[in-house]
């Protein structure tokens, strides 16, 4: 037996590069499980070995637990890192690996189940004493007005078995509720095979703030501050920052303490994120969900606190000390991440693919680029549009915004349309510079810009 453990990287793109770097950092040997489209990718070249697990479409490769598990067996892997997306929160792969005695870089399967479903996640939060939104299940859609009063307006009617934003209705008064609830029930039956409904308080002007946790699997937690991810378009995060600007000490303490309580209740293992809605019009803080994986935006936390969360994940999975420090609630630096997507912001963010003919990244103190792209890389059409994450650190938020603005200006990506012009616009906007904008901010602001140009 070699004492160099093999890490199977079950993902692609920038996060595959990131996991490979972390594996190298801890002296492990990274092996990439790749689709045909990615078998000669930069990540494939960076790995010690590539195992082709399936055809190019993700549903024939990266989304197949058996194929990834088979690759792990073939690689002689000690652990499998699933990255984010794909199979990262699926108990299926985790359990297949367990049978083979291969470690899963992530929480236990029962944790994935407990937080993977809206209803059970809410129950876990209640058990942990974490604030959840006022909500109530509807027994009889023709008799809902009293329940509406209990929650307050505006409120949302949600299909319990819905998802991805489907089956949700906004209601501002009792008359609307009485009219729309029976319709929503009928639609839920048609769409989801189940008419069960749920009423929830609606926050029209709230921020998305999340807490980075790392559990030792025994109930103890490291808390690595918070991130604000409120610059969103249709629930897709565009810009993230650490720490979340303008949080009172009391609110921050509530967010961090709640997250710590969740880690304890779940005996959470490894890196995770607890997402909250932070209202800008009241003092309400509401638990949204637990993301039981490393997230796209983890670098802002890493840069702000000077830690390597992915290396810590690998070490913990291998049964070693994750080598993480205890830190205070607020990091000593401010960090902003811009997601550079292969999308045209002037054409409704339509994704595009093709050859990258020229690529220049900015250099300088506090600049980090997490990416798989390089000059000559053919950006494939099969997967999501994330090309790179530009991460900029400075001593405070104002300096970070200024540095991020300069960094964005000094990126050249030729051959594809990217979201860089959108970043330049947001970073220069007085609302963003002031900090603390809600998730509802970006949509109308971007629309208004478009109208001002025509």
């Amino acid at each position: 037996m070699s004492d160099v453990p093999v890490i199977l990287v079950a993902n692609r793109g920038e996060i595959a590069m990131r996991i490979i770097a972390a594996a190298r950092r801890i002296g492990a040997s990274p092996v990439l499980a790749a689709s045909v489209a990615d078998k000669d990718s930069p990540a494939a070249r960076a790995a010690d070995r590539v195992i082709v697990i399936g055809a190019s479409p993700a549903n024939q490769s990266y989304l197949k637990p058996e194929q990834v598990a088979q690759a792990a067996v073939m690689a002689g892997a000690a652990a499998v890192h699933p990255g984010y997306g794909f199979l990262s929160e699926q108990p299926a792969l985790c359990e297949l690996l367990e049978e083979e005695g291969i470690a899963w870089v992530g929480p236990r399967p029962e944790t994935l189940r407990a937080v993977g479903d809206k209803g059970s996640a809410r129950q876990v939060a209640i058990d942990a004493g974490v604030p959840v939104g006022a909500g109530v299940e509807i027994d009889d859609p023709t008799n809902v007005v009293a329940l509406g009063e209990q929650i307050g307006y505006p409120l949302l009617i949600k299909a319990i078995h819905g998802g991805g934003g489907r089956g949700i209705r906004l209601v501002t008064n009792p008359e609307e509720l009485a009219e729309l609830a029976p319709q929503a029930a009928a639609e839920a039956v048609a769409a989801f095979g189940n008419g069960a409904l749920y009423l929830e308080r609606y926050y029209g002007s709230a921020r998305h703030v999340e807490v980075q946790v790392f559990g030792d699997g025994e109930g103890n937690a490291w808390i690595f501050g918070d991130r604000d991810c409120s610059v969103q378009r249709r629930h897709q995060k565009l810009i993230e920052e650490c720490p979340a600007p303008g949080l009172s000490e009391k609110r921050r303490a509530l967010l961090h303490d709640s997250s710590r309580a969740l880690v304890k209740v779940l005996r959470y293992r490894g890196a995770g994120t607890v997402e909250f809605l932070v209202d800008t019009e009241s003092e309400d803080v509401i638990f949204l969900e637990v993301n039981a994986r490393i997230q796209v935006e983890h670098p802002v936390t890493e840069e702000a606190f000077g830690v390597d969360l992915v290396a810590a994940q690998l070490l913990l999975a291998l049964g070693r000390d994750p080598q993480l420090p205890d830190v205070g609630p607020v990091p000593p630096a401010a960090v902003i991440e811009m997601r550079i997507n292969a999308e045209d912001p002037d054409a409704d963010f339509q994704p595009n693919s093709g050859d990258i003919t020229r690529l220049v990244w900015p250099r300088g103190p506090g600049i980090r680029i997490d990416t798989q792209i390089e000059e000559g890389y053919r950006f494939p059409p099969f997967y999501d549009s994330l090309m790179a994450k530009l991460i900029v650190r400075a001593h405070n938020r104002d300096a970070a915004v200024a540095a991020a603005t300069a960094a964005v200006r000094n990126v050249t990506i030729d051959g594809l349309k990217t979201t860089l012009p959108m970043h330049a616009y947001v970073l220069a906007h007085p609302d963003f510079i002031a900090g603390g904008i809600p998730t509802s901010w970006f949509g109308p602001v971007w629309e208004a810009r478009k109208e001002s140009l025509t």
Partner: protein
Amino acid sequence: MAEQPSWQDVLDLIAQLNESDYESASVQVGDVSIRLSKNDVGFDPGQVAGRVGAQPRIETGFDTPTPSATQPATAAASATQPATAALGDTIDAPMIGVFYRRPSPGAEPFVEPGQRVEADTTIGIIEIMKLMNPIVAGKAGVITDFLVTDADAVEFGQPLATINTSA
């Protein structure tokens, strides 16, 4: 004989060796030398590959057919093209897993090189996490060679066998 032996020439040699009492034979044609052996004794693949150089496929060409005397002749009857063209088509693994040539350990292989197959003929099994998947040829022709051995781990798209579709 031409300057370089054709696939047909090599198959003829194999057929003759099989019908003879000789254990091995060595033939030099121009700058190509071919060594044939009924068993592995005295067989040095490195040496052969080194000498054959430009046509390394010949080496594997005679390695597997030797157990059966009739099969090489079947293939030889129609193999009139140069070796590389006849071996051009492959049957590729449609999934990652462990490839088996037999339905169970000790059983006869599904097919042997030299055998004619149809598109729906099972040529092997790929096991993926304890699930057995029959693998069909996918095209009609004569199997000329297996490129992986029994119980080898294979990746998606890896060539499993060569097939002569014009046979």
